[in-house]
């Protein structure tokens, strides 16, 4: 999940679609994010590379829409509805996730276990 500046980022991503839950006036997704290019990356407990300034999922409300859709704690969000999340400020990320007119958000997330799973499956099932 680290990147070399100037080189394209490659990652194995999972697509997750979350339906927003309406609670009174608010549409909630049921998780908390942390990180951003204006934050201190050294304090991120979930990132492998402590200079990674991406957006990470820090908390999931149990039973909320995010958990139901398959989001896990520690996931790094790469895209939200097509908007890039690897080089945004914390506030921009929040805004992209909490647009009032959108009822559903489609995230591309990546996590370490995904890579392992792909490597594993590649190893055991070599492509022909």
């Amino acid at each position, binding site marked *: 999940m680290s990147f070399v500046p100037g080189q394209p980022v490659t990652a194995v991503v999972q697509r997750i679609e979350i339906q927003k839950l309406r609670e009174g006036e608010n549409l909630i997704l049921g998780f*908390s*994010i*942390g990180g951003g290019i204006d934050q*201190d990356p050294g304090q991120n407990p979930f990132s492998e590379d402590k200079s990674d300034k991406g957006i990470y999922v820090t908390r999931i*409300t149990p039973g909320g829409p995010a958990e139901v859709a398959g989001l896990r704690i520690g996931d790094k969000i790469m895209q939200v509805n097509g908007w890039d999340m690897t080089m945004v400020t914390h506030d921009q990320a929040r805004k992209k996730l909490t647009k009032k007119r959108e009822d559903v958000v489609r995230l591309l997330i990546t996590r370490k276990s995904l890579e392992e799973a792909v490597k594993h499956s590649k190893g055991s099932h070599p492509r022909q």
Partner: protein
Amino acid sequence: MDNESQYSGYSYKSSHSRSSRKHRWVRRLKRRSTYSDDNWGETTTVVTGTSEHSISNEDLTRVTKDLEESTPLECKRFIGPALGGCLSFFALITPLAFLILPQVLWRDALKPCGTPCEGLYVSLAFKLLVLLISSWALFLRPPRATLPRFFVFRCLLMVLVFLFVASYWLFYGVRVLEPKEEDYRGIVEYAASLVDALLFIQYLALVLLEVRHLQPAFCLKVVRSTDGASKFYNVGHLSIQRAAVWVLDRYYNDFSVYNPAVVNLPKSILSKKMTGFKVYSLDENTTNNSTGQSRAMIAAAARRRDNSHNEYYYEEAEMERRIRKRKARLVVAVEEAFTHIKRLHEDEAAASPKHPREVMDPREAAQAIFAPMARAMQKYLRTTRQQAFHSMESILTHLQFCITHNMTPKAFLERYLTPGPTMQYQQQSGRGRQWTLVSEDPVISGLRQGLVFSLRRLDFSLVVTVTPLPFLRLGEEFIDPKSHKFVMRLQSETSV
């Protein structure tokens, strides 16, 4: 102010009304409304139906002011210092008398006293010299004010000095003069002890009269009753009368001069309300209920829409515009006038004999350049209602002063563009100014919180309110210079 000298060749208008009003109070000429009449000194005044022998209130106060200022020299002013002077002279002479009297009266019987006495003589002489010099420095000053009541500390000190000296004389008379004491050294020591006591009394006087009131303890708010000009001062512990003198000292420097012409809203704005209503009573029995009529008028006037604030606003704006215009003209006129003359240096005079220029002294130079700016100056002073403070003569004197000291036109105009402190307009008369201290508490009591007293002059008064200065509790916080450290902001976590 009475000079009506004609400056030849220049055509500004001189007239009667320029001279001081105190000689003209018999004939009172009514002028048109103050806003439109801006020709100072022109004879276009209108005599109205009021009689020629009426006196206005302003003239009356001026007359009484002059009367009171021309009273003969008051002796009351000098009694206090004279008494103090006599007492201190007596006190200074006493030790010398103590020493000299035995020598004069029974010289032969005295025991000779050698070196110790000479030592005492020297110390006595020096102490007396110090007493003399410090008395001169501290107490021999002309008094600045006469207070309505006794100055408590000064009286206390004079009584103390008197008691001391009297008791020393008593003792001296009983113990030394009567039995013709022979121990001269004892007498010299006695005189030295008196001088020591006098030095200590002088120290007490210094502390009580000069030092005690230096540490600030109260805040005085001084407000002038006519136009609301106010200032805050910090004073120490003083009695009310001393505080009043202190405030008046500062008043002459800090407050702009009181101009009776700039006080209230003009009547044309305020008095539009009550006019325009006539009350007819339709009752058969015509009882004269005037209260009913006036009540009806007041009610009707209250219901009418009140636009006087509007008029006031526009009047103020117009006034300001007019003042600015006149000021611009004045500044330009003065600048141009100043370019007409220049200072002649000695080498220039010798170097150009073929162009003999007329050499003038400052007075003539001032008169020469006054004429072009005279009209602009008149108009400006009239618009800002300062014409009562500056006579033609005083302007010329000021111009002469400025030319002599190489001042620029702006420096010359500084005196007229802003109303200066009252001190600037004082004529140096020896009579002094009469102020009345109005107070509910006895004036020798000290200042304390919530006290209010006022200082009244003929046409205005200063109201003084006393509040104690707050007690300050100063705490301490030590910051280690190494403790200034910074980190990046913590990861903020937002729930979505």
